[in-house]
């Protein structure tokens, strides 16, 4: 609490600025919703329609119907759901396991290995997509869903994050006590460490899920239009039906529903995750 009471004038300026930035934040998404519920003939109108209309169902039917068959939207949703869940579960599990080992176990070469995790963290994966594509060709995985899953089952950033978290969240006495009780190291991880890691793992899981759901460039490189992820399907809509705004916006709306659900349910955790440095752009 700051003891100084801000002057009324200054304070209203603060609120005004905050409200304006809030409106700017929300407006594009609100506009997305408005257009998705309208018909195409009102899109170019000015002043624009600012309230939702009654065409959402109609637009959704077109999105999943034969008219937009080229976009394979339902397939994209299913593919992205599968990929996001697999990647999230795997990243959270392996990051927790390795993070715990780096934070709490002693072994030869620990520091060197940890340093190599840190060094690779900042390298953009995008840089390696040509050879990664060649690997996929060798494995016969082009246009198969595993191509957007398997390469992302582990994350250097996740390991680093969970190591930082385990360092703080798991007391050494707890580990020693469990050891004296004859717990194996993996038993220790399952029964003692993972409950303590849960809040950190949840934040990592949320951001991994959103990141995989939003992944764009790699699916575009390795998948084909008939077996897309949801973002790929969106780009198909934007490419092939770009004059059909209501169709495009209905698809975009559907594509961000899982993200909005995460936002509504876990908004606070996302904020504290960002403020703790749990995400990178």
């Amino acid at each position, binding site marked *: 609490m700051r003891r100084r009471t801000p002057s009324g004038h200054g304070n209203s300026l603060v609120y005004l600025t905050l409200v304006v*930035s809030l409106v700017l934040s*929300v407006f594009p998404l609100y506009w997305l919703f408005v257009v998705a519920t309208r018909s195409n003939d009102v899109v170019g109108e000015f002043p624009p329609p600012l309230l939702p209309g009654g065409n959402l169902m109609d637009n959704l039917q077109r999105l999943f119907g034969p008219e937009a068959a080229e976009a394979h939207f339902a397939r994209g949703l299913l593919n992205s759901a599968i990929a996001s869940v697999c990647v999230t579960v795997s990243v959270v599990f392996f990051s927790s396991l390795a993070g715990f080992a780096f934070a709490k176990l002693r072994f030869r070469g620990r520091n060197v290995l940890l340093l190599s995790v840190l060094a690779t963290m900042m390298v953009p994966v995008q840089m390696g997509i040509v050879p990664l594509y060649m690997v996929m060709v060798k494995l016969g995985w082009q246009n198969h869903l595993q191509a957007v899953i398997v390469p992302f089952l582990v994350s250097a950033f996740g390991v680093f994050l969970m190591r930082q978290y385990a360092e703080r969240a798991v007391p050494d006495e707890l580990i020693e006590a469990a050891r004296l009780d004859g717990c194996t190291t993996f038993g220790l991880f399952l029964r003692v460490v993972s409950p303590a890691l849960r809040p950190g793992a949840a934040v990592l899981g949320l951001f991994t899920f959103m990141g995989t759901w939003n992944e764009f460039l790699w699916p575009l490189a390795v998948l084909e239009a008939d077996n897309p992820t949801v973002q790929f399907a969106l780009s198909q809509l934007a490419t092939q039906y770009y004059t059909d705004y209501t169709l495009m916006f209905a698809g975009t709306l559907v594509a961000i529903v899982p993200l909005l659900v995460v936002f509504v349910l876990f908004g606070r955790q996302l904020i504290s995750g*960002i403020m703790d440095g749990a995400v990178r*752009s």
Partner: protein
Amino acid sequence: MTTLEHEARGEGTVVDRRRRARAGAWSRLDLHGSPYLFVAPFFVLFAAFGLFPLGYTVVVSLHKWDLTGDAGLIGFENYSTLLADPDFWNALLNTLGLLVLATVPQLLGALILAALLNRPIRALLFFRLGVLIPVVTSVAAVAIVFGQLYGRDTGLVNGLLHLFSVGPVDWQASRGGSWVAVASMVNWRWTGYNALIYLAAMQSISRDLYEAAQIDGAGPVRQFRSITVPLIRPALIFTVVMSTIGGMQLFTEPLLFGQGDVSGGSLRQFQTIAMYMFEQSFQNFDYGYGSAVAVVIFLLTVIAGVVNAVVGRMVRGGTQ
């Protein structure tokens, strides 16, 4: 651990001792082997799908390599072609221009937003959730909505400008127009994220400093410049470096702004280097050349990151 070893060496019947010795061996194996088992999945998968592709990019970039396969080592030929390629320089210019237009307003806006959110205000969580919304949205969604807002004939932006008798502006047609449109997408999406980072840093500053400054007669602006900004410098450097890395890889926004056209407009007026890399690799199937572009993007990112970090340090020297 010492207790277990002690037990294993301890007294007892022969059978008992043997059993204990075996348990001791197991637990020692568990103790020394498990850590490696725990970190192994990460390193194995990362080596195969992360490290190998990164390193192999350099190898491929030194080869003539297209759809028909590897046609042999050609040394630095891809790189010398690249340096003489006007399309590459055009893409680099676009990337750097967009980097400036998308980073500077974003970080300044975030700084102001964070300073406001750091004040004792009502409905704090509500406003914080508000700035979080764009972060949660997908890039493709942002690009599609903004693409429509910037439409020449049906976009809201031109509708608003028309009220001031400006336009209609064909945002896609010109370099300046498309830069502004694409940069606004990036700014919209990341300002809130950076504001939350700054806010976290600001909250760790001791209140005593502000009170002391107030006693010395420093106003809010002076306090902000002389206390807040210097003390959140690590967060500032972090966001500048992260925005730079992000900016060098800009791809989705300009791609969807141009209806999925990887050449970034009819005159390549908003093609970024990431798009150029994609075009060469996956549209022209020139893997060798595409890899050379990737390596150059990587080097430029490292250079830009280092320059930013160094500048950040120098600024520190300047104000103290």
